[in-house]
């Protein structure tokens, strides 16, 4: 019997006159990979921002592993086990790869040395260990997403939020990330990801939620969702598929 990692109920947010997110209900089970898709402007990143404490919802509830986190600040939410990436993430230039990851590792109590040790483990796990002492400025672009993943993993999250982590990647880079995502899940981490690249999200997700104009319009297995006429219609207006 799987527990629930994240439970969002009736969440709404308005910006000025525009309702960005409307009465959203989303559940991420433990050890589940949940995909979040929808045309541009559907409110996906806003949803992430609301869940992770960057915006405050107008109404609704957000429960992380049973704890109400609606008034929590982003760093508190990370300490509670939920970490997220940003779409336009950059590495910390001027620091080495392992130092970049150490900042994440410091999320857990312990000495600086322990943080370095844990960071090394993460780098090993993600296949970045050869870049350990390379300056982030000199890291090839193809590895930037992996580094982002490493920083997040180092925080030892129980729920990982990935915001369009596939964007800009070529086929083999994408396969690598997908492989790592599955590996992360097999370690017991739940994953909630926003994606535009259909191939990727249908391959890796257990379940998919579809958003349009801030509302949930479909939910189900990748097969179910891909064949749902509502979903197809929503995307016809947006040719990014």
């Amino acid at each position: 019997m799987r527990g629930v990692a994240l439970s969002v109920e009736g969440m709404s947010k308005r910006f000025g006159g525009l309702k960005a997110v409307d009465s959203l209900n989303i559940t991420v089970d433990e050890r589940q990979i949940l995909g979040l898709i929808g045309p541009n402007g559907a409110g996906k990143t806003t949803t992430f921002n609301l869940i992770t404490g960057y915006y405050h919802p107008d109404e609704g509830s957000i429960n992380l592993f049973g704890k109400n986190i609606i008034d929590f600040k982003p760093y508190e939410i990370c300490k509670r086990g939920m970490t997220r990436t940003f779409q336009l993430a950059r590495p910390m230039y001027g620091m080495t790869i392992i130092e970049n990851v150490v900042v994440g590792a410091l999320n857990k109590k312990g000495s600086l040395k322990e943080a370095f040790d844990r960071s090394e483990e993460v780098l090993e796990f993600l296949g970045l260990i050869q870049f350990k002492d390379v300056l982030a400025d000199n890291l090839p672009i193809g590895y930037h997403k992996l580094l982002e993943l490493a920083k997040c993993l180092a925080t030892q999250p129980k729920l990982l939020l990935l915001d369009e982590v596939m964007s800009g990647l070529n086929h083999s880079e994408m396969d690598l990330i997908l492989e790592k995502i599955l590996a992360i899940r097999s370690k017991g981490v739940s994953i909630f990801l926003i994606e535009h690249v259909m191939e990727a999200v249908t391959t890796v997700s257990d379940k998919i939620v579809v958003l349009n104009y801030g509302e949930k319009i479909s939910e189900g297995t990748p097969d179910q969702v891909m064949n749902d006429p509502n979903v197809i219609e929503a995307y016809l207006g947006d040719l990014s598929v």
Partner: protein
Amino acid sequence: MPANIIIEAFVGGLLTGGIYGVIALGLTLIFGILRVINFAHGEFLMIGMYISYFSCTYLGINPYLSLLIVIPVVFVLGVLCEVFLIKPVLNAPEDIQILLTFGLVLVFQNLALLFWTSDLRNLSTPLAFKLIKIWGISLRLTTVIAFLASLLLSLAFYLFIKKTDFGKAIRACSEEREGALFSGLKLNSIYYLTFGIGITLSAIPGALILPNYSVSPFIGLSFTLPCFIIIVLGGLGSAPGALLGGIIVGVAESFGGLLLPGSMQKLVTYILFIAVVCLKPSGLFGAKVRD
């Protein structure tokens, strides 16, 4: 305190506020389009004032006529500054922009000090002392003119932005900077022209208030600071916000002047800044949240 003093202070503050509003309009325009915080905004006003002063003194004209000289000179200066100094840092991190415009402040202030000394310059014209009575309150004629001119200027600006092609181009630019479908060259010209306009908007009030205001190299900051308060109050890129904010700040300073001795008057501005910038709900520059 007798009622008419309070009313005078209020109205005086209103008038000053309208003038502040126009200056702030320039600042918010520059920020809205170029995304640069122009620390040196008040310094351009100071330069405009000096130009006006020297025009009046050596050419024997009145400050209003001097605008014919002030406007083109300041505009060109603004364009040159943008092209050579601001443009290189348009995409740099905010710190660098702050430091650069701060460097501009030091340069302008101290060049002014070198050329024109720290003596306070006052335009002694009989115009400065003329009072008019409106609804029983005595007001300085020049202040009223400055206020009305500011209103006119704001109106002209509003029409310019809403109705002209260039105005529309500016607006498109503010909404979607990188996505603006302009060739690189066109975007550049929008930037330097906008900067020039923004600067000129702040320099014109300088000439307008010259009859009642002594100019020295250091007056810049006394205008820059209220401008920042105003754009926080009124919201970035909001023209009516700039005017409304201007009035609030003008009135607040006016009452401060009533209650505090001369040397402490600046305290009002400083405390106001801290209060406004803390209490104004975030979402201004606050959390630069991605979306």
